[in-house]
């Protein structure tokens, strides 16, 4: 895959402090989910600001799409349009008096005409599930809503890369799951996602690649299972092991589990333990997973499906699916971690329905398929409304 962002031996120091980055080199491949993990003052935010062209390295170079980044204003405009940055504190980012004006800020400054601006704003707001919030002033929004508006403001510029500084800070657990799921959804539509976080649990299960930083330098860059397997590096970066990893290593040390591949999440850990425990026991026949694309919704169909009782559990992934469920008064059992929970239910012989939209249908199928390959499970997946043609994109 092509590298979309690259830092080559970059150094940076703020005028009033020691060096924030001390010769860091790294490559971000297109379409990946990357988590920057490290203690306070490791240089995560500095690196993020550098990727957006806000900070210019004192030495070394940043490459965007294979080209060295230039710092004249037309080039910067281009970079900033393509690489969207969401700040940690939404109050720093939301400066306009209304939600509409804030989301429209990027498009207006890109010189879009009024109708195009309006279209992009309403698309971005509906994507984050805040249609109808246009006239609200930011100080009348909750923390999670502010975060969504901040994301919408960046989304309205149609970036290829989205960088989010601590996307889940100050959010309640359900709120952060929803944000992370939205980031998954954006990633499955082809955008490269980069987040910074202190939350090792989050980085461990969400990211494709983890970039462990400490004191302005790169400690380790690789898949989460590799990065978090290294106890020494992790504690050097003042982080701790994700709980799943810690339990796995503990059990492995006691000889309860073996193998080289640590589990990524509760689901995988449960499976490992179950396979160990149930050797010789008769297996239950797995349940089914039904997928339903709300973009092609014929809602009568889903009603009759639900009434038939084929699925014991219902989950919704993504904003438009959740909104559809709310509109149709469908009671949801899962609102986050939906695929994993459905697989977990399927392995215990129960069936579930996942409502979702757009590219997330394929994403879910791939995810379940990958699971089956790995664990030798046979979960049947069917898309309820596969035959209806997809709506044209916006």
């Amino acid at each position: 895959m092509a590298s979309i962002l690259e830092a080559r031996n970059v150094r940076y120091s703020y005028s009033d402090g020691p060096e924030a980055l001390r010769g860091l080199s790294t490559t971000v491949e297109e379409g990946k989910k990357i988590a920057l993990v490290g203690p306070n003052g490791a240089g995560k935010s500095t690196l993020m600001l550098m990727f957006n062209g806000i900070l210019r390295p004192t030495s070394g170079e940043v490459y965007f799409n294979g080209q060295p980044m230039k710092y004249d204003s037309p080039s910067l405009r281009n970079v900033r349009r393509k690489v969207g940055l969401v700040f940690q504190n939404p109050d720093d980012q939301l400066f306009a008096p209304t939600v509409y004006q804030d989301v429209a800020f990027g498009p207006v400054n890109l010189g879009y005409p009024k109708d195009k601006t309006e279209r992009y704003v309403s698309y971005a707001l509906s994507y984050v599930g805040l249609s109808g919030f246009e006239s609200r002033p930011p100080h009348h929004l909750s923390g999670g809503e502010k975060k969504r508006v901040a994301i919408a403001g960046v989304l309205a510029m149609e970036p290829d890369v989205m960088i989010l500084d601590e996307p889940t800070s100050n959010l309640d657990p359900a709120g952060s799951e929803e944000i992370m799921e939205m980031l998954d959804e954006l990633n499955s539509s082809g955008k490269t996602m980069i987040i910074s976080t202190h939350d090792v649990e989050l980085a461990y299960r969400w990211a494709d690649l983890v970039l462990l930083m400490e004191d302005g330098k790169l400690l380790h860059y690789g898949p989460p299972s590799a990065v978090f397997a290294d106890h020494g590096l992790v504690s050097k970066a003042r982080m701790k092991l994700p709980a799943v990893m810690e339990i796995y290593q503990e059990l492995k040390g006691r000889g309860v589990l073996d193998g080289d591949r640590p589990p990524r999440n509760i689901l995988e850990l449960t499976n490992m333990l179950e396979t160990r425990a149930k050797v010789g026991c008769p297996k239950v026949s797995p349940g089914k997973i039904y997928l339903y694309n709300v973009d092609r919704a014929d809602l009568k169909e889903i009603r009759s499906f639900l009434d038939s009782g084929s699925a014991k559990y219902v989950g919704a992934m993504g904003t438009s699916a959740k909104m559809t469920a709310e509109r149709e008064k469908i009671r949801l059992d899962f609102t986050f971690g939906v695929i994993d929970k459905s697989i977990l239910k399927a392995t215990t012989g129960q069936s579930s329905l996942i409502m979702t939209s757009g590219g997330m249908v394929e994403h879910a199928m791939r995810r379940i398929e990958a699971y089956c390959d790995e664990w030798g499970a046979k979960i049947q997946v069917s898309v309820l409304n596969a035959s209806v043609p997809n709506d044209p994109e916006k």
Partner: protein
Amino acid sequence: MHDLLDDYAQTNALRDVSPRLKLVLGLGSILLCVFSPSPVAPLIAALTMSAITVFLAKIPVRLYRKLLIVPLTFVLFSSLAILFVTGSGEPIIAFQAFGLGLGIGRDSANIALLMLSRTLGGTSSLFFIALTTPMIEIFSILKSLRLPDVLLELSMLIYRYIFVLMDQAMMINSAQTMRLGHASLRGSFNSFSMLSGVLFLRAWEQGERLMVAMDSRCYDGRLDVFERRTPIMLHGTLAVIGYLAAVAAIAFLTRDLRLI
């Protein structure tokens, strides 16, 4: 949290009435109050505007009463000053105090009364605007009135950061009160200075981050205004015109009337 009138304006019962119409009504009534030569029209305006604010816009009476107290005390003192200071016209009351001959002349009584009524009328009209028309809608009107863009942008950014800094000021204040920072006069001097100092630095840092935030989203000197399409209702427009005309007529008819 913050007791700013804008919060009430966001939720008042006249929120969906065209902001232009409300502005015309409020400003028109202010102008009539200022130019009315007798106190009758301003007093009528004060009564009607208060009634509209309380009954039609459904602003809590308690809040409205609290709001009125501040300008009311101020204007009462000023009228008293005028009453004694300008002392012209045939005296209606005269007395000796502190070895000085003090008196209230008929003319100054009339001037004081006129000022009192104008201020009342003007204030209640202003309260009508402040309590029924959210700032964000006034911005789009200002834009269409060709207010310079810089000034408009400055105002919109100030608007946003007023709320951010207000919250911070409250938080710092609670943190100080919690640790008895306002227990003594000396303490509260220190606390107040520290609060304003911290607030200034926070504002400054906020400004630096705001610069980055605007830059990172391709700021090119353009900040759009938000326009909510509220249809101008015919009967509403007619009612406003009728009302203003009636007050103007009263002001004209009572031009020579003196109450005292």
